[in-house]
């Protein structure tokens, strides 16, 4: 019997906290709650959860600061932000401070449960050496991509970008995150370079690049790589 995943919900609105706790408990998670940022941080540091559901506008310590403090403490469990703001710059700020994904209030509970499940699964499973993406197969040992045995040529950047995507599935990735991880901190790279590389990569792995199945654009934020379970 596997242990149940532990979820910490940091939310100051009592009604929302009640509804979220009931739903996650019903989905067979162990749920802990905190009503302000400082209490949330204390709980996280005392016993890191498997997933943190984090509101942004929190009393005492806001969600951004909490997120930053968690990452500074070298804790790498997934963080899902719940934000009422819904403005791109706020979302990007949260993601760049270490959150893995976000949902804008008001959200659907089924969608939230599905996102939480995917983030937890990613945490539990190591990225395999051979990954099937649609009909194509990415071999991470030989750094090759092939479809039906035929190799699909990839540039170094395209390979590194694809490798970054498959090792960070279901996460909202900002252009800055991608630039820093794939290109390094080069000053001549811009968000446009990322967009161009994504476009060429899509043409190689997506069956219909105009309606992508794997690399999804998050408007004004970045990209999310979705892989079928």
């Amino acid at each position: 019997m596997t242990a149940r995943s532990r979820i910490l919900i940091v939310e100051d609105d009592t009604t929302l906290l009640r509804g979220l706790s009931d739903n996650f408990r019903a989905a067979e998670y162990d749920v802990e709650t905190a009503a302000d940022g400082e209490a949330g941080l204390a709980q996280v540091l005392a016993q890191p959860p498997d997933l943190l559901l984090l509101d942004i506008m929190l009393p005492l310590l806001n969600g951004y600061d909490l997120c930053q403090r968690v990452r500074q403490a070298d804790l790498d469990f997934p963080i899902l932000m719940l934000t009422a703001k819904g403005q791109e710059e706020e979302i990007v700020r949260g993601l760049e401070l270490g959150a893995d994904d976000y949902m804008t209030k008001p959200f659907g509970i089924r969608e939230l449960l599905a996102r939480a499940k995917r983030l937890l699964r990613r945490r539990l499973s190591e990225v395999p050496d051979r990954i099937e993406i649609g009909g194509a197969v990415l071999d991470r040992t030989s750094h090759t991509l092939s479809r039906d045995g035929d190799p699909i040529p990839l540039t170094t950047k395209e390979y590194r970008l694809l490798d970054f995507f498959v090792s960070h599935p279901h996460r909202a990735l900002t252009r800055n995150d991608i630039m820093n991880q794939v290109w390094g901190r080069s000053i001549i790279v811009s968000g446009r370079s990322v967009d161009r590389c994504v476009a060429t990569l899509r043409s190689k792995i997506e069956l219909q690049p105009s309606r992508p199945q794997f690399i999804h654009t998050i408007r004004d934020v970045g990209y999310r790589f979705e892989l079928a379970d």
Partner: protein
Amino acid sequence: MSFLSTQVHQGIIPVCTNVAPFKLSSLPKVSVSREGLPLSSGVKFAVTLPEEAGRNLMDISLGEKLGPWRLSLAETDGDPFDELSQHRWAVHVWIAMLVVVTTFVMAWVLATALRRRLRLAQLKNDLVATVSHELKTPLASIRLLVDTLLEAESHPTEQMSGAQVREYLELIAQENSRLTRLIDNFLTFSRMERGMQRFDFHVTDVRDAIHQAAAVFREHLGDVDSCLQVDAGEPAYVSADLDALVTAVVNLLENAWKYSDGEKQILLTVHTEGDRVHVAVRDNGVGLSARAAARVFDRFYQVDQRVARTQGGCGLGLSIVNAIAEAHHGEVRVESQPGVGSTFTLCLPSQRAENASSSQPIEQESQL
């Protein structure tokens, strides 16, 4: 010599220069008075010695026939142009000062305008942030609870107990009334900001307003009888828009409720002092620092974000009370002690009781 005398009469002094062949004693003793000559002060005529020719203002040859004689205009006592140059210098100083002062005034005007615009932009941002957060949070709760109820309904295995369903429905109702109050406050605030709020003044017994306000407060917050004490006292008449007055008192009561912990005690009283009717709301809440008390009527100001988040609200309630008080030619004051509690007092000009008996609207209609 007639030529020379003419020149002297015109204010020009003939001076002998370069007179080496002549002895000093041979020079004519010429003494010319300034009187009758249009010369400025500080100038006097004199026949100068040849070696003093360098100080002359003008020095011209009189032609070959007169040989070494030269006609010179000399000054011997200071600079005759001092006054003029001082005058010009003064003009320049004044112009410079004017330019500097004008520059400073313009810079101040620009800085003030810029500050006002920045404040407006900040206000707009605050409004957007507050609206999005304060409206979306209850909406998110309602959606979550309704989704949960629907989900349970469609999956028999996840049936909820009757008590739990009722609890969810009550939570939804609470969130609903929270949304309604927020929207009412936003609308009132928006009308006041646009100057569209109209007040219909009638002579009113303040006790009617506070009883109505207490009823609304009870309706909003459920069982508050244990903490709310109303002391209406003697009849007290003011010229007021009854609805606005009720709104103001409700906002004061809700503010007292939000900022009180533990065993809340709220006292609502009415009394008359001189020509003013005082409606006071006293609480045993967290109280205010002097700095917070000075800002408490500002729009979107919230003393404690934790309280604001958990109890709802967007920092508009007290600014609405203030606007209503001003429209009634009154004021709202706060006395507070941190950790002990606060008293908010709405002071309105009192009216004679006999004006009330006519029950006619008085000739006073205000528009904010």
